[in-house]
C-alpha cells in the first residue's frame, strides 16, 4: 500500500506524453505464428509495475493481501504432450459421427486444457470456467482422460438426447461454468474468485478458458476492469488466441491487438506465448503463483494444430470431417499417441 502511495505521487508529475512513452517501452512481443516448427522460448512477462500507480484499492479490496494458492504442476512435459494428443484424438472421435463440429477449438486449445486438467487442477478446490461453451469438447476430452468423466458418455456427444451437448449448458458436466452466449465467462470467473476471497479460501484458484474472438464482447472488458480493480490474484485466464471466428480470421474482422498491452492496461499480468509449446505454457502458468493481480496467458495457437491431414483452408470454427478424413485423423493421432506410449 505504501508503494502505491509513493508511485501515486510520481504519477501526478508525469505528463501524458511521457506516460505514453513509458507505456511504449513495455509493448508486448510480436505475436508469433504458431507452427509445429516453432522453437520453445522463454515466455516473456510484461509486467508494467507503473500500472500500480493507477490503482487505488477500493473499500472492498481490503482482503487483497491474502496469500494466493500456489500452482504446483504435477505432470511432466511428455505426459502433457501425450494428454494433449489424447484430447485431440477424443475430439476427433466425438466429432466424426456428425461429420463436422467444434474440432478446431479442441485442436487449438489442447495444450491449454492438458496443462490445466493434467497438471494444475485440484478438483474440489479449484474452479474451471469454459467461457466459450463450444470449447466444452476439449474439457470433456480432458476430463475423460484424467478420470473426471466417464469416457463412455463421450460417445453420445452432440446427439439427440445425449448428456453432453455440443454447446455446453447448465447440465453439462466438468466445468464449473460455461455459457454459449460468448463473453460472459470472465464475469463468472471473477465472481468465483471473489467468492473464494469472501469465503476465506486463499488456497483456491480459478482457471478461466477464454477465446480471442470473445474479446469483441464488451462484457469481457467490464470483467477485466473489475478483476483488475479487485486484484483477484487467484484468477488465471488461458486465452486461446487461435485467430478464428465464424466470419473468418479474427484479425480480418476486428483488430484486437495489442492483446497483452490491453490486459496489462486493465491491471493484469499478461504473458504472450506459443500456446502449443508446453514448456512455455507450464512455465508461464507456474509463474502465475504469487502474482499480485489476475493473470492472463495469451496462447497463440492454430485450429489445425496436430493434424497434418486437415486441408489448409479448413474452417477453424466448424471443421468438416467426412468419414475418409476422420479415418486419416484417427490414424494420425493414434500413431502420435503410440509414440508417447513407447
Amino acid at each position, binding site marked *: 500500500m505504501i508503494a502505491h502511495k509513493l508511485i501515486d505521487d510520481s504519477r501526478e508529475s508525469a505528463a501524458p506524453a511521457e506516460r505514453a512513452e513509458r507505456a511504449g517501452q513495455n509493448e508486448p512481443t510480436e505475436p508469433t505464428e504458431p507452427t509445429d516448427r516453432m522453437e520453445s522460448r522463454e515466455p516473456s512477462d510484461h509486467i508494467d509495475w507503473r500500472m500500480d500507480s493507477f490503482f487505488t484499492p477500493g473499500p472492498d479490496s481490503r482482503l487483497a493481501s491474502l496469500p494466493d494458492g500456489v500452482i504446483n504442476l504435477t505432470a511432466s512435459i511428455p505426459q502433457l504432450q501425450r494428454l494433449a494428443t489424447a484430447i485431440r484424438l477424443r475430439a476427433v472421435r466425438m466429432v466424426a459421427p456428425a461429420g463436422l463440429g467444434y474440432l478446431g477449438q479442441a485442436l487449438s486449445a489442447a495444450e491449454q486444457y492438458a496443462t490445466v486438467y493434467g497438471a494444475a487442477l485440484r478438483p474440489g478446490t479449484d474452479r474451471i470456467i469454459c467461457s466459450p461453451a463450444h470449447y466444452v469438447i476439449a474439457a470433456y476430452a480432458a476430463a475423460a482422460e484424467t478420470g473426471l468423466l466417464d469416457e463412455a458418455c463421450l460417445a453420445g456427444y452432440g446427439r439427440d438426447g445425449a448428456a453432453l451437448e455440443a454447446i455446453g449448458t*447448465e447440465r453439462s458436466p466438468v466445468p464449473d461454468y460455461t455459457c454459449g452466449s460468448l463473453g*460472459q465467462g470472465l464475469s463468472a470467473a*471473477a*465472481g468465483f474468485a471473489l467468492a473464494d476471497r469472501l469465503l476465506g479460501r486463499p488456497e483456491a484458484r480459478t482457471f478461466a478458458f477464454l477465446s480471442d474472438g470473445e474479446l469483441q464482447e464488451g462484457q469481457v472488458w467490464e470483467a477485466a476492469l473489475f478483476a483488475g480493480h479487485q486484484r483477484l490474484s487467484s484468477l488465471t485466464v488461458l486465452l486461446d488466441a487461435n485467430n478464428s471466428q465464424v466470419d473468418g480470421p479474427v484479425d480480418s474482422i476486428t483488430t484486437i491487438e495489442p492483446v497483452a498491452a490491453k490486459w496489462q492496461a486493465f491491471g493484469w499480468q499478461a504473458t504472450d506465448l506459443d500456446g502449443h509449446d508446453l514448456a512455455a505454457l507450464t512455465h508461464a502458468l507456474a509463474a502465475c503463483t504469487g502474482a499480485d493481480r489476475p493473470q492472463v496467458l495469451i496462447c497463440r495457437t492454430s485450429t489445425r494444430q496436430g493434424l497434418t491431414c486437415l486441408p489448409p483452408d479448413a474452417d477453424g470454427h466448424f471443421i468438416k470431417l467426412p468419414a475418409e478424413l476422420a479415418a486419416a485423423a484417427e490414424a494420425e493421432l493414434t500413431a502420435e499417441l503410440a509414440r508417447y506410449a513407447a
Partner: protein
Amino acid sequence: MRHDLPVPYRTALKPYGRALVELARTRPEIVCLTGDLTRQCEIDVFQEAFPDRFIHCGMSEANMVGVAGALARSGFTPFLHTFGVFATRRPLDQIVNAVAYPHLPVRIVGFMPGISSPGGPSHQAIEDVALMRALPGMTVIDVADATQTRQVVTAIADIPGPVYLRLKRGEIPVIFPDDHPFSLEHAQVVMTGGDDAVVVAAGMMVAPALAAADMLIRSGVGASVVNVPVIKPLDTATVLRAAQAARVVVTAENHSVIGGLGSAVAEALAEAGLGRPLRRIGLADTFAEGAASAAYLFTKYGLTTQHIIETAWAALALPGPPPRAPDLATNAGEYAPV
C-alpha cells in the same frame, strides 16, 4: 376497509435499505452489489453496516450480473442494485444465462419504476416487468408502499430461484399499517365497496387505485381494489374471484400495458373462460417524454386517479360525468397519488 384512507400518506426514507441491513445481520450469506447507484438504491446504509459484504461493480451491469451469478453458485445470496432500466433492459442476456437459466438465488433490485422518473425513456423502466416475467423461474414483485417493502425483503430471503424486485425511489408512502399481512402467495383485496368494478393494481398504482375506488364508492358505484405485489407467479385465484364478482375489471400499472400486470390478468381471465370487460391502465404502447416531474408524466400518459375513475365509469357505461378525484395538497414528507 374503506373511507379511512390516510391520505395524504406519510412517507418513510430508505425502508428497503434498512430492511436489508436488518436481514443481513442474521444472514451472513447476503452480499450487496451496486452499479454506481448506492445512495439512490438506499444501500449506503448497507455499505456502512457491512463494508466487507458490499461490492462496488461500477457502471458494468453485464459484469455485475455475471459476478452475482457466480457468487450465488458459491453459496451467497447476492442482492444486486441499480435502476430498473439498467437492471433488466441492459443485461438481459446475462440475466438469462447467468441467473435465470441456472435458477440461482440472485435478487435483482431495480429502482425508479416506470414513469416515476422524468429522466426520459433511457431512465424509465416501462417494460422491465414484461422482460422479467418472460424468464422461466423468475419471481417478479412490485410492492405498493414502505410497509410492504420492508416485509418483502424478508419474504424473498429464502426463495431458491431468482427474484426481480421493483422499487420506488426516494420518499416511500406508508399506505398499510405495520401489521398489515403480507404474503408472496396471495394477492390482497385491500378495499371492498361493492361489485361494479374491481381495480387490480400493483406498485405505485395501488395508491391511485385506492383513491379512485374510494371516490367511486362515494359516488354510489360499487368498487374494490386488489393489490398484486407479486406479479409472477400471479395469484390467479384471488384475481379471478374478484373479477367474477365484478362487472368490469380495470388493471393499473406503472408500466407498459403490454407484458405486465394487465397482460397477466388478461391471460388469467381468458384461460379461466371468465368474460369480463377489461381495461388496462398503463403506458399505452408508448415511450414517455417531455417532463421535469413525474406528476406531469402520470397525467400526460393517463396513469392518474382521475383516469382510473373515468376508465371504470366508461367501462360500466354509467350516465353523466364521472366524479372528480380530490386534488390533494401535500406538505413536505407527505405523499398523495396524482
